[in-house]
């Protein structure tokens, strides 16, 4: 549901490489391999509804008593969860028929479930169990404003071309989004791109009149929005279904039967209520699911953030895992950029002719937006997760290190350089014994800059399933949970500060005493 998802869905999933399977296995399967009992892995995407449906499916699997049920919560966006399903890392996840048709199978028109299954079968996948609601795009307007203008259906919009329309970038840009809709309905307005998370507030404060929503959005009720009737039937169906590996019914027949029991069980109204419970009342996803399965969806409506303090979120069960992942991302990429950056910096300092090229290209890498770079690397390497994230961080960390190395070396005074040469030390020894130590302060400063920047940038890695503190930030953004967001942002900031302090200590070790400002006074 982000820029990266559209970028990611740009590549066809016709080819499955062994590499992808291996990476997924390493990343996600290890814990499962240890379990003796058969395990069924349920996936979900990173937004409230998917989390809740994932929990419902997981609880249903568990209730069948045939296999252990593991929920890989909020693994990522569509492309990532789908890739995980194809690689066998998960067995089933909730998906929408429209997404399957347009994004995953890259069809141009909506298709029946039978048609979808015909194309999914060669991939070893199937779609079944319509859960009972349609979560499609819709346009919505404040109830009062809609009444004032007398607008009830999309066709009515033609009468009021001066409406201010704020649309999410995704809806604004996708083929089957606004451009096609404007054509179908003959609308001439020029909408404004708006972050989806801000759209409701912008609408409530009257800054825009019309926004795009999902038809089961939790906030539809809260903000008193009127969903306009799609009177020309423009929007395709996004019926919620289960997307699964075809071997699942064979592997776990009783479980599959239980899952089939979910068919038609969840209405749009129920889904909106559950989304509101989780998103607006702060009820944990698992308890929303539990409430639904025990037939009392509203029972758990509780005070926001009930039973959860900032501190308990901060040091939650995943704290050490996220810290470990974050450190891995930062230090693995930093290590690579030192190994590559210092020699590049030396080369740039040695030969002025290539220096412009080296610094220019390393600097250009810095200007690529991180999500775009990640999307590109994922397409290029055909894998998601830690590896492309580390490579992206590595590329970003290069510039400070290359630049500080080359300028540190270039700034060595000419007489010192000549003295070293005149002593009869060969080039390599001069570099090791004289030039690098003299440039140490500058090089370390570059490495420190890279390390601190990396701690921040590594939060982006969560978008591609590489974990780290970003996982909380992304989850917090996805479900509008500020506490969760802060529980990711605060430790990342603390880690950046710790990094800074750590390097200050390291400076004392690595910068030759004779070059330090605070070197001992006498002998």
């Amino acid at each position, binding site marked *: 549901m982000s820029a990266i998802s559209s970028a990611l869905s740009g590549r066809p999933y016709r080819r499955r490489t062994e590499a992808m399977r291996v990476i997924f296995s390493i990343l996600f399967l290890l814990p499962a391999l240890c379990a003796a009992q058969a395990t069924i892995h349920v996936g979900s995407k990173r937004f409230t509804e998917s989390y809740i449906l994932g929990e419902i499916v997981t609880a249903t699997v568990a209730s069948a008593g045939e296999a252990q049920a593991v929920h890989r919560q909020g693994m990522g966006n569509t492309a990532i969860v789908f890739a995980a399903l194809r690689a066998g890392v998960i067995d089933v996840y909730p998906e929408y028929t429209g997404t399957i048709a347009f994004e995953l199978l890259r069809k141009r028109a909506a298709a029946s479930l039978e048609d979808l299954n015909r194309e999914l079968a060669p991939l070893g996948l199937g779609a079944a169990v319509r859960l009972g609601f349609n979560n499609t795009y819709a346009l919505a307007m404040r109830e009062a404003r809609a009444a004032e203008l007398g607008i009830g259906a999309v066709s009515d919009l033609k009468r009021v071309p001066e409406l201010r329309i704020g649309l999410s970038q995704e809806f604004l840009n996708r083929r089957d989004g606004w451009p096609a809709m404007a054509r179908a309905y003959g609308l001439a307005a020029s909408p404004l791109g708006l972050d989806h998370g801000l759209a409701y507030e912008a609408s409530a404060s009257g800054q825009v009149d019309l926004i795009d929503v999902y038809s089961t959005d939790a906030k539809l009720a809260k903000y008193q929005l009127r969903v306009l009737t799609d009177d020309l039937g423009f929007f395709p169906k996004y019926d919620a279904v289960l997307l699964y590996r075809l071997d699942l019914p064979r592997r776990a027949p009783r479980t599959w039967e239980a899952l089939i029991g979910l068919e038609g069980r969840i209405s749009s109204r129920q889904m909106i209520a559950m989304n509101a419970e989780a998103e607006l009342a702060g009820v944990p996803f698992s308890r929303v699911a539990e409430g639904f399965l025990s037939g009392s969806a509203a029972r758990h409506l509780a005070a926001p953030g009930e039973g959860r303090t900032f501190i308990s979120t901060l040091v939650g069960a995943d704290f050490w895992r996220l810290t470990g992942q974050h450190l891995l991302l930062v230090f693995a990429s930093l290590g690579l950029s030192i190994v590559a950056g210092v020699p590049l910096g030396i080369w740039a300092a040695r030969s002025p002719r290539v220096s412009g090229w080296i610094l220019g290209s390393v600097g250009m890498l810095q200007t690529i937006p991180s999500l775009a770079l990640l999307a590109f690397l994922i397409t290029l390497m055909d894998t998601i997760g830690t590896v492309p994230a580390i490579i992206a961080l590595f590329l970003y960390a290069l510039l400070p290190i290359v630049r500080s190395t080359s300028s540190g070396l270039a700034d060595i005074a000419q007489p010192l350089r000549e003295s070293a040469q*005149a002593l009869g030390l060969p080039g390599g020894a001069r570099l090791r014994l004289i030039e690098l130590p003299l440039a140490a302060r500058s090089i370390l400063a570059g490495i420190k800059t890279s390390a601190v920047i990396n701690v921040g940038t590594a939060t982006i890695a969560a978008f591609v399933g590489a974990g780290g503190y970003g996982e909380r930030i992304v989850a917090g953004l996805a479900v509008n949970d500020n506490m969760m967001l802060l529980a990711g942002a605060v430790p990342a900031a603390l880690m950046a500060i710790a990094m800074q302090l750590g390097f200050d200590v390291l400076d004392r070790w690595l910068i030759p005493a*004779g070059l330090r400002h605070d070197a001992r006074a006498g*002998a």
Partner: protein
Amino acid sequence: MIRLEGACKTYRGSVALAPTTLTFAARQTSVLIGPSGCGKSTLLRLIVGLVTPDAGGVWVGGEELHKDNVERLRHGIGYVIQDGGLFPHLTAGENVALLARYLGRSRAWIEERMSRLVDLMRIPARLLERFPRELSGGQRQRVSLMRALMLDPPILLLDEPLGALDPVTRYELQDELKRVFAELAKTVVLVTHDMNEAAHFGDHIVLLRSGRVVQAGSFGEFLSHPAEDYVRDFIRAQRAAVPAAN
């Protein structure tokens, strides 16, 4: 011992050293003298291979200097640049021992050699534990000389080794160096601006002007048979500046 044959160097059209043919005899102290920018340092750099001549050649100990032998020949040359050129990240002692350590000399050899040099240069041994910036200018000059002498090279190239020193220290060091050079029987090429210093050290004086040798010979010859008016002018200017030294 050291010979330049038509060696010259031009920087972007401006002549630093015109084609020059010169010999510096073995076990003798030669002095290069001349006004600022006349090419003295350039001449030393040619000898130590930091600058490659545009034309002509440089012979050191009978071998013509080129890429393949320059590092080996440098081990036989002690070179002290204008402001000492000590490495700030190493202590004075580490500066002195750097090359010997790199060449794998034993600890005992290095210690023994350093203590000889400490005596020779009359430097308190504890100063060797300090970093260059913790030393006075004169102390730094002595340490630079120690570093140049460490491997006991037959040749010493000293670019204004006594520049930037107060007159008293300078006077002292002049005497000491003259003693050291005589004691060790080195081939020395020393650069100075100062005719009195040149007369003090030099068996052989070379006066340069605008990259050209004006006269080469003993101080006596400079006085009795000046090659050009410029020689007389140069000497007179120096005498006027320091009348007491006469």
